[in-house]
């Protein structure tokens, strides 16, 4: 099988790697580069546990080939914390008990973080729509919606 040399910038660090054409971005991140935050929950793009940000867009890394992202800037959950401290969204997830088993959390955070970059004072319905592509089996979403709502509220206050 042919191999391709690609470069990825992950959370600001540049990596060179060699992948098969069929290597998924999530596998390149997890297996080749050691970013194990993004998880594989469904292999079909439904659950969103593998969500990462590629050039600013939240995408499902289990339905993206690594070669498609050659040269891209990738952000994963590992890049959210600020110098080791939880960022505002992560802190709100903890405060509102927005996670239980935590398996969906990395993807949920990346989707919510991307949503909050453009959303000002979102309604609960808008938040629910924003995270519709990320499944959580533990929380029933209520506290996740609370966490995202509170993060938006804090951002609004600080502006």
């Amino acid at each position: 099988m042919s191999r391709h040399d690609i470069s990825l910038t992950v959370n600001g660090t540049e990596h060179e790697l060699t992948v098969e054409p069929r290597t998924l971005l999530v596998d390149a991140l997890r297996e080749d580069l050691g970013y194990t935050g993004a998880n594989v929950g469904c292999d079909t793009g439904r659950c969103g546990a593998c969500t990462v940000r590629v050039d600013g867009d939240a995408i499902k890394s289990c339905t993206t080939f690594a070669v498609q992202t050659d040269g891209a800037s990738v952000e994963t959950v590992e890049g959210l914390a600020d110098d080791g401290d939880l960022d505002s969204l992560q802190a709100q997830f903890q405060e509102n008990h927005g996670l239980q088993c935590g398996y969906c959390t990395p993807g949920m955070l990346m989707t919510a973080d991307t949503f909050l970059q453009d959303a000002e004072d979102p309604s609960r319905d808008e938040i629910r729509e924003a995270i519709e592509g990320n499944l959580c089996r533990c929380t029933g979403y209520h506290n996740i919606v609370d966490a995202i709502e509170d993060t938006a509220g804090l951002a609004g206050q600080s502006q």
Partner: protein
Amino acid sequence: MSDSENPTAEDVFGSAVERQEDVPLLKGEAQFTDDVSLPGMTHLAVRRSDHAHARIVGIDTSSAEAMEDVVAVFTGQDVEDSGVPNAIPTAWDLPNLVQPQYKMLATDKVRHEGDGVAAVVAESPRVARDALERIEIEYEQLDHVTEPSEAVDRDVPPVHAEAEDNVAFDFELGDAEAVDDAFAEADHTASVDLRLPRIIPNAMETRAAVADYESTTEELRIWMTSQNPHLHRMLMSAATLGIPENRLQVIAPEVGGGFGSKIYHYPDEAVTAWSSMQLDRPVKWQATRTESYQTDCHGRDHETTAEVAMDDDGTVRGLRVETHAGIGAHLSQFGSATPSYLYATVLSGQYTIPAIHARVVGAFTNTTPVDAYRGAGRAEGIYVIERAMDVAARELDMDPVEFKKRNLVPAEEFPYESAAALVYDSGEYERGMDTALDHIDYEALREEQEELREEGRYIGIGVANFVESAGLSPSEAAGNLGSQAGGWESSIVRFDSTGTVTVLAGTADQGQGHRTTYAQIAAEELGVPLEDIEVVEGDTDRIPQGMGTYGSRSASVGGGSIARGAREVREKARRIAAHQLEASVDDIEFDDGEFHVAGAPDRSMHIQGIAHEAYLGHDLPEGMDPGLEVTDFYDPENFTFPFGTHVAVVEVDQDTGDIDIRKYVAVDDCGEIINPLIVDGQVHGGIAQGIGAALFEGASYDEEGHLETRRMDEYAVPHSTQLPDFETDNTVTPSPHNPLGVKGVGESATIAATPTIVAAVSDALQPFDIDHLDIPITPETVWRATGGND
């Protein structure tokens, strides 16, 4: 959240403490099984049956073996030839239970689509999966059956030769004669047929295992997605692999949800471990989502007829229940217990029903094994009694709330012995119902309902009461009913010599927050700050014994054990304090970590300082051994009985069949609350799964016996826009026999939510003469039932 910030040790029990486990999970640094990577690790994939039922004529693995980077291909015969015990056992015996051998890989026949036939070990997971397709298997197809009643009534080839009629067990509970008398004497009877479809648990993390065998020491270490690592250790030692228990280490790292599905010993981890033993290399296996759907034990699968006898005044006289329960192609560990004792014993619900009889026929079918899924047995039982009560109220033309209230077990009747063989420990059922109804204006809603019906709009109010038998203990009682496992839980509470505390717990977390709640218990009992307490779970080499996490047992049984151990540690510390302060033990008072002499508060020692003294051993009371730790085995004297009332208000759109949940109220009584944040979280998630079963979820098989719901876009796990905000509230009725007064909350809301929603939808559709609709009540179900586009 102001009340969650640094509570003192004294008021930490009951506080909304933020979870200790969150930070690594939020940063993506937590280690799940799939994150484990070992030098020289190989990857295993399982070739599963293509058929629901077929005889294996031949297997040719040569083409797969010839592939580059394939390390080995194993068949069921290879496992058999290795001489390991190779028999996944049941953990619950019933009279005349048929127990066919459940092998790690099939040899003679495949009995459902997910049965493993061969395994490939390769240098990468992709090569292992590619090689599966090169294995050639010749089958002789057999007729198959997927519905439980058909399996025992229709002339089909048996799933197992040992059960010609496909009956795994025929179970009865209660007094059939008393029920016949009640029905003969009662003024009215009502009846309802109920189909509870298969639920796929859908833990977000699929099952996985990483096995590492060291041939030089003959030791096996296995990381796996387990709700009960000690049970897995025991079963792999005694039943499948035959490796001595003291050379087997099972580690459950972070586990991404379980809901029952990770209790059981499956063939996959046994094959993974066995392969590592053959190859002397680390082996990793992780299920794809489709494999997970095909092989994780499903829940429910009941076909039931329930009949109620009642008098004119609304007094229930008797309940008769007949159930066919599918247990799938193999008997999983609690596949016999879940539809028998865990089910029939709660059929009395919250009500005084003088005569109850239940018969359950457990049927082998060519389907994924069925076992405990969140609510296990209790969810099915409460669904039956609540639907039956709603239909009975309708028969009497009585308001369902009034009818249910009339039949509640009164608060003064506790402990209450039901006609279904349980003794409920404590309860205030009417208070629970009233508290839930306080969240809505019931009378106003009934008026609104009348008005809206005039406009062709249909709202419905559903009120469901539940009681749950939780804890799966005590051991002796469970043993008398057939359990092959203990009902106790074990812990070690240890002061380290520098004054920090290590709590080793035999339960195993999959998101419940044990590290936080257990630390709160230890902090409360020992007067030590939370940050000085480390809770350890999920490693059989660190925690000597345990039973695990299932049946809503961790807080009550596991937490109870920690409380007992901590109290014993505290009393030893008190004796050391008395000795060193030169006072009588009876004069030593304990307050927030400090021991002091009564009336002389300046003569004091802190418990963390005493820990140091205990390990120094220089100045201990005569005859006292050094050290400050206690190993506890807590075997409760009864189950605990969480209860509550849930209320839903829905609006059903007749044109589209859409169901809008306008309001959802959950009032749960789980006894004393250790952490309200976590209790709410458990309730939220439980409601979500209960609503899922009511409106969206259900696995199905096609005519060939293939699972139709194979992927997450084919099986409807509820997503964020399908669920409402939840309103939660609690009453607190402590368990009188639990050391903490705790009852447990893990399964409660899942049990309550399904009948609540179905009651609400049925209530909305009363004008269409609909008493009951089977779940999941999809828009199509509603649309057809209300006359389609007539």
